[in-house]
């Protein structure tokens, strides 16, 4: 009995991936060229000038730094807000509670970026309910959007469902009896969490945080709508470059630099993953 040849099964995927990587390769190539003035054509010779220009530009350097710092901040906030929620979902004895959290996460997750960006503009806007509350308590109105605050809040909101759902699986895989064992040997709830559950959740926490960081660093829509032009994240800089001058080679070089920065943490994780699973692996018993 002959099986269907593997090639029959995978050629559609290979074709799609070929388009994707050809596009990236062509893009990388364009980043080495320069534009013929007044046309949409590029010419050689190939050089690294576009890269040098990008690194020489204070605007781009600042945007890169801001993007990295903001992404770290957002990741940290996501961990703080998301860990208790994931833990509660993994450990709560109440089906109703678990399903309610899950429903909220999934509906939030599925309701989309534009929806949520606009929602935050309404919530945090000068005439929004948050400012209404602040005024009602007798304080001055505060500017909550068109600044970093609004961008950070909205991105944390965007990332939380991804983070919680990824971390949830990891915490669920830690048997609850391990915590009970710790308790029965004298550990308080907090000690049991600190010495058993927390360290055992590190691999899952690392992957979930990495996902959060990757999503944060690629944010584009939220800075665009809630940054009010004051928050330049790198993706927005590339967009502006295309919008204002259609200078494809420079945009390509910027995008390539950006891609490398976005991939660094993933590469780092793959380096330490082996060590992580050796240290925390074998969770089965």
């Amino acid at each position: 009995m002959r099986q269907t040849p593997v090639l029959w099964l995978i050629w559609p995927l290979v074709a799609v991936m070929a388009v994707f990587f050809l596009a990236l390769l062509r893009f990388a190539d364009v980043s080495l060229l320069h534009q013929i003035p007044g046309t949409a054509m590029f010419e050689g010779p190939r050089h690294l000038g576009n890269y040098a220009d990008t690194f020489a530009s204070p605007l781009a350097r600042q945007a890169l730094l801001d993007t990295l710092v903001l992404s770290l901040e957002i990741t940290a906030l996501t961990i703080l807000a998301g860990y208790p929620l994931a833990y509660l979902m993994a450990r709560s004895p109440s089906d109703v509670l678990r399903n309610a959290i899950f429903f909220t996460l999934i509906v939030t997750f599925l309701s989309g970026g534009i929806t949520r960006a606009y929602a935050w503009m309404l919530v945090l806007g000068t005439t929004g309910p948050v400012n209404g509350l602040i005024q009602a308590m007798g304080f001055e109105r505060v500017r909550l959007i068109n600044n970093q605050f609004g961008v950070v809040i909205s991105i944390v909101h965007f990332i939380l469902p991804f983070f919680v759902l990824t971390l949830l699986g990891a915490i669920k895989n830690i048997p609850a009896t391990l915590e009970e064992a710790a308790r029965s040997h004298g550990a308080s709830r907090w000690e049991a969490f600190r010495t058993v559950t927390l360290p055992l959740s590190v691999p899952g926490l690392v992957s979930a945080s990495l996902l959060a960081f990757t999503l944060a660093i690629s944010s584009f829509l939220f800075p665009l709508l809630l940054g009010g032009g004051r928050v330049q994240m790198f993706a927005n800089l590339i967009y502006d470059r295309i919008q204002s001058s259609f200078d494809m080679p420079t945009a390509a070089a910027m995008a390539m630099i950006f891609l490398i920065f976005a991939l660094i943490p993933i590469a780092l994780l793959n380096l330490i993953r082996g060590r992580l699973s050796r240290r925390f692996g074998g969770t089965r018993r």
Partner: protein
Amino acid sequence: MSNRPYSRAVPLSAAVVLLFLIAPTVVIVYSSFSPTSRISFPPQAVTLKWFVNFFHNDQFRGALANSLAVTALVTPLTLAVALPASLAIVRRQFPGRKLLSALALSPLAVPGVVIGVALLNFFSWAGLYTGFWKISIALVIITLPFAIRALVATLEGLDLSLEEASRNLGAGRLRTFFLITLPQLRSGLLAGGIFVFVEAIDNFSTVVFLTDMRTTVLSVQGYGYIRDFNDPTVSAMATILIVQSIVLVLLLQRFAGFDKVLAGK
């Protein structure tokens, strides 16, 4: 409560986070029925005019039609590409198997803006100028990882002996696939399909580079409207999308169970 494994601080902080998660959804639905974009409570009046406005606006109507057309193509196409590939990745041994599955997931790691600009450049170089096709191809690339993840996770959970039993009872390879394997993949297909569908409707950062004057989609049109106008028409659009996502979630719960979605995520 001595037997609960966590202290009261956990549900308390979780409640704050849940409020944070749900608040924007509540506010935007509320505003879609309110007369102005200025939110007042209690409501002064209830109006459906923003919904009317959404459906009467030519640009929104065109964008909605395009979005629906694109997703109607992209959702089945992505699943059709992902299903045989996932079968090969899970069930077969072949050189480059690990590399292939890593590459199939790689679009997840590339920022949407980078994919968008790269494809913009690629399509103009390749001479493809039709907005519909540019957007569709981009969305297949972007949504493939979601579909493959969901299907690979489901396939890995299948009990091979069921298929062996079917073969043993005399069913051929093809009949076994359609009678035994495919029905068990239903939850994976559904979960994957929903993720693909939602991403295809919602994607902005890539698609914004590929739309043009004639072909725009809901997300890009919504962005343009927010930039240019200050009324809750986009709230109406958002409310429609939220209702749609609630329907999808209930569908998913009904036919697949929430845990399957997790595997697919």
